[in-house]
């Protein structure tokens, strides 16, 4: 695959310019093979809308979210302060990210440590571009198709953002078919609170399997979400579906890229 056009914030500085926004990629988006495809999809969207954006590259480091929620406040604050120093030294004002965990941490937990930015989840950012007339989405591939949506906890309940991703699904002319537990009542995928990095405690079943049961009851063949960790958990959870029940778990950015053939 060909390389996408990206510039680091340092490149911008060397040119004596500054980008409109920083794209905070996050650890999953940088290193996880599945999540890298989400990163690329969003870059394609930004490029097609001619948004000047920069990435931190080797200057980006974990926000500290999994450490904080595991209980390691020291490590979290070390990470946070280092990142805030970097962001402030580049005079960053606006941040967009495809990871709701990064989004939540930078938006809610960095301010009292000296990091104040306008933070967007990518679904919010794309909505903003639509409103400003800088980007458009037309039905195409998904016209009339049933798509269901899984609310990431850190975008939904944690930050009360239920409409931005749904609005984009509707823009695809797709039929949004809600899961039984959705919006503020959505069931977690099982990855949050550092669970992604450990075995779960003993129980009857795994949380992503429980969520997958609900996905199966909903007859959509496409499960949209807006979080790389939810993506992994739901892909795993739905893997065992019989051939005729198979579903595809896609990030909303990927849906848009496919619909627009970017």
């Amino acid at each position, binding site marked *: 695959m060909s390389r*996408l056009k990206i510039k680091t914030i340092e490149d911008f500085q060397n040119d004596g310019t500054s980008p409109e926004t920083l794209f905070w990629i996050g650890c999953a988006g940088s290193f996880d093979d599945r999540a890298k495809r989400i990163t690329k999809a969003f870059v394609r969207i930004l490029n097609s809308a001619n948004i000047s954006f920069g990435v931190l590259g080797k200057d*980006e480091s974990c926000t500290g979210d999994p450490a904080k*929620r595991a209980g*390691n406040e020291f490590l979290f604050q070390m990470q946070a302060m280092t990142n805030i120093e970097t962001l402030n030294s580049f005079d960053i004002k606006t941040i967009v990210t495809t990871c709701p965990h990064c989004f939540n941490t930078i938006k809610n937990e960095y301010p009292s440590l000296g990091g104040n930015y306008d933070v967007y989840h990518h679904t919010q950012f794309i909505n903003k571009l639509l409103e400003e007339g800088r980007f458009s989405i037309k039905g195409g591939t998904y016209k009339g198709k049933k798509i269901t949506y899984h609310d990431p906890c850190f975008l939904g*309940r944690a930050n009360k953002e239920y409409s931005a991703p749904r609005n984009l699904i509707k823009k695809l002319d797709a039929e949004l078919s809600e899961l039984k537990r959705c919006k503020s*009542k959505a*069931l977690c995928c099982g*990855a949050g609170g550092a669970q992604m990095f450990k075995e779960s405690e003993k129980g009857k079943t795994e949380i992503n399997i429980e969520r997958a049961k609900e996905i199966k009851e909903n007859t959509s063949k496409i499960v949209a979400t807006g979080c790389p960790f939810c993506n992994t958990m739901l892909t795993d959870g739905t893997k065992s579906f019989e051939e005729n029940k198979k579903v595809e778990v896609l990030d909303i950015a990927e849906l848009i890229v496919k619909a627009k053939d970017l």
Partner: protein
Amino acid sequence: MELLPNIIFSVILIIALGFFVINIKRLRRNINFGKGQTETIDDSPQRWKNMIRIALGQSKMARRPIAGILHIIVYLGFIIINIELIEIIIDGIFGTHRMFSSIGVLYGILIGLFEIFAILVLIAVLIFWTRRNLSRIKRFYETKMMGWPKLDADLILYFEIVLMSLFLLMNATDVEFQNMNNGNLISGLIYPFFEGFSSETLHILERSFWWSHIVGILIFLNYLYYSKHLHIILAFPNTFYGSLENSGKLNNIKSVTNEVNIMMGKTSESDTLDDINFGASDVKDLSWLQLLNAYSCTECGRCTSSCPANITGKKLSPRKIMMDVRDRIEEVGRNIDKNGWFKDDNKKLLGDYISKEELWACTSCNACVEECPISINPLSIIMDMRRHLIMEESSAPNELNNMMNNIENNGAPWPFNQQDRLNWNE
């Protein structure tokens, strides 16, 4: 001799209120035992709005429609019927009879309203009893709910059945009131059952119902402190002090900020020389707000029934966390009552009440916080206890230690090199 009932009434009233005040003081002392950090509580008008909307307006109850609507009936009944208490207390102290009946039509409207609510409350409470005891709704039957919590829940229902019945019977046997025919909407229907009774018997019955009703209310008032029913008072401060921030925000520990600033060379002054505990292992490490949360909990279990860990059979139950905190602070309170100060009892919230297994099962998804009808935050307690496990005991599951080592060494939870952060574009 004529004054004797008035004196007895006043004495009972003073004793009941006295006990109530003692219990409220004990409650305050216990809640203030929590020394943990809270977010600064500003006096934003939003706090009043939240209290009016969530506690007074019951805005979150109807998320579960059946229980929600039944609860709103009982709640409205409680508030409205208690207006009658003003008259009952005045009558009791001054030996009057239906002091306000002279206001005429309005009196009839009020009493009529009270009677309608009394019968609605009776019906709602009977349905509640059926739900709890016959439909055996799953969330009422976890281990922690057995014993006292189950008895407490049933006792509250019995109290309400008895009090509502006494209220209606007291009106039904009041010949003078029935003859006024002003507001006896329900009691007027019960009155015929007493038709054959002599006026003397009816008077004795009316007095017995009247006295049992008010004494019952005063007993119920003093039962609150020992019961989950305390929520009828504490729901108000609890929703007032509830967080105004996005629920995704987890507080940054200030003493850690100081330490990190020193480590990063941003400041050399340490104002954290005091004996600091990171996180919480016992109730003293929790904040007063977290303890207020525990005393406010009504054990409805909406949190637990929406918890993904609990749904999938893990040990974690957010309601149990809240009940454990209350049980422990009560134990500590009794210890202080006995010794005059807290004498170490070699017990802790962590370990003796709440196990590591429960704490590590949480996904921090905020479902429990979202579900609570009165803004209790079980997640903050779980997180504070994890903080203790990690920062004081260094006791984390191994995989989490690996994750944290990776973040520390290469800035990502996985073992990838920070220099390779742009390799996704290869």
